[in-house]
């Protein structure tokens, strides 16, 4: 991680224990953490300040993770921001969310209960890809 600029993670989750766990653990890993307790709050937070990564639960009151994810990924301002879905829902849901026509598949999918190693590895992978993508986009932008 670059010391000068901490990456920001938006944790979208409604379970208080999971929020506490993810927030502390991500902070310990050197991230800045922001929390949204449902899809509506997440949309607001993203609008105020787009994060570098979103971890997203699915089953939440008000606006669910599925709805938030669809809107988020269809918005060209945020489509490049990686999303890791962290949910207790089973494999059927992974297939469902990965094959939707209305939105691209999520960059990461982690089933609860997750191991810290698995989550860290997934974060590194998706952030690495996002950085590559970002550079690629910039390069394309410059050419144009």
């Amino acid at each position, binding site marked *: 991680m670059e010391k000068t600029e901490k990456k920001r993670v938006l944790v979208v989750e*409604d*379970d*208080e*224990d*999971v929020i*506490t*766990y*993810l927030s*502390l*653990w991500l902070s*310990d890993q050197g991230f800045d953490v922001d929390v949204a307790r449902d899809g509506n709050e997440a949309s607001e937070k993203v609008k105020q300040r787009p994060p570098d990564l979103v971890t997203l639960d*699915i*089953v*939440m*009151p008000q*606006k*669910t*993770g*599925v*709805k938030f994810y669809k809107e988020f990924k269809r918005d060209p301002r945020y489509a490049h921001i990686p999303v890791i879905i962290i949910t*207790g*829902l*089973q494999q059927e849901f992974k297939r469902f969310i990965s094959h939707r026509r209305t939105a691209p598949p999520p960059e990461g999918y982690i*089933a*609860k*209960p*997750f191991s*810290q190693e698995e989550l860290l590895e997934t974060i590194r992978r998706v952030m690495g890809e996002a950085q590559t993508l970002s550079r690629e986009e910039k390069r394309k932008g410059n050419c144009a």
Partner: protein
Amino acid sequence: MMDATLQAWLHTQLFEQVPVSIAIIDRNFVIVEHNRNFEELFGPGRGRKCHTVYKKQAGTCDACIAALSFQDGKVRVNDEVGVDRNGHPAHYLVHMIPIVTPQGDIPYIIEMSTDITEIKRLQREYQVLFEKVPCYIAVLNRDYRIVKANELMRETFGATTGQYCWEVFKRRADRCEDCPAELAFSDGQTHVCEQEGINKQGEKTRYVVHAAPLSRTDDSVTHVMEMAVDVTRIYQLEQEKLEAERLAAVGQTVAGLAHGIKNILTGLHGGMYIFKSGLDRGDQGRIQQGWQMLDRNIEKISTLTRNLLSFSKGKIPEIQLVRPSDIVQEVVELYRDAARQQDVELRAEIDSQLAPAPFDPEGLHTCLANLVANAIDACQMSERPSCAVTVRCREQSEVIFLEVEDQGCGMDYDIKQKVFTNFFTTKGEGGTGIGLLLTRKIIQEHGGKLEVDSSPGKGSLFRMIFPRSRLPKPAPRPESPPDTEARPSEETRQG
């Protein structure tokens, strides 16, 4: 004295006008005279041998009835098959009346034939219909003895005429308690019911029987025709489907369980991490926070386990005839105060005509209580200033509907999809999500289903649907204490 005109008419016209075929034959079996009706049926016959005209055959008939009447002078009636003028078979009923002279001679016989070809055709059709129709048919007299049974009935039940219907259908020694034929005899109406019999192989057979009254006159029912359609296979499929639904519920329960446990495990992992990292850093705040999280999640898993035990205990539903409206009333009374304290108006809309039905009253109470509690919670999460929950019970076309409608926060599509498939809760710390699963399990044990209609911000309608035909049968009340097969209660087994 008869009027001369009438007498003249009788002599000249009657012969031609009567609606039967008349021919007069002599002792040589030659037709000496016939009327127009005869000619229309058999063709012209004057001067010809009767067998050539009636039957279009050269030789005399094997058993000639006319010959007998020429011998003994008796009137005879016979059912004959001949050939009509177009060469088609003709059934006719012939009356042979010898003309006897004062000297006792019999020079002629008058043969009066009625064409019954159409009646015979209908008889054959009826016979085919009766014998070959793919259902059981038995005609019973007032003693409940079978006077006629069709082919399928004979093949399946080994029915023979003269036996009592209960002997044949059910291998019983005495009359059945719920006899549709008895009702048909008493009120002259058709009665329908589903019955279980035993076929001649000793196998159980389910059939839907229509008992229709038969009478020669309009005023009294002399016989009842029982027509039964075999539904054994359909019944088996229905039972298999119910079983499959129960198994599916078990499968979904296990899936839901796994989801519930995953969340708690995540909480425990989190607690462990925070506690350990607190120890590593000597951070008392973290140690405290981690400890509390561990404590909370251990409590959660204890609650879940307790709920699961009551869920999976395998409590056998105690089915008895109850008024669903009484249970609705009970639940509404139970929750009214709690609802009022939360500014929720709890209402009951009850169809007082609803007949009793076989339910496990405790199970139904649990279902309604869960749905009402959920509805009150949904109202609390609503942004409306005031909110109402309505509990309804009604019946339509033999289907009982129990509904709980709220004006609460409602659910969107994704939540609706998951409501019954997971230990799903939107109540944060407050719920384990087991209520709806338990509700659905109980409903399925009653052969019913649960539907939900909901839209965010408007409210939800949970509808329990119980077709009467699928409700379980009330358990017979044992007169003696339960035998050793009765399961001991959980407490007894543990104790």
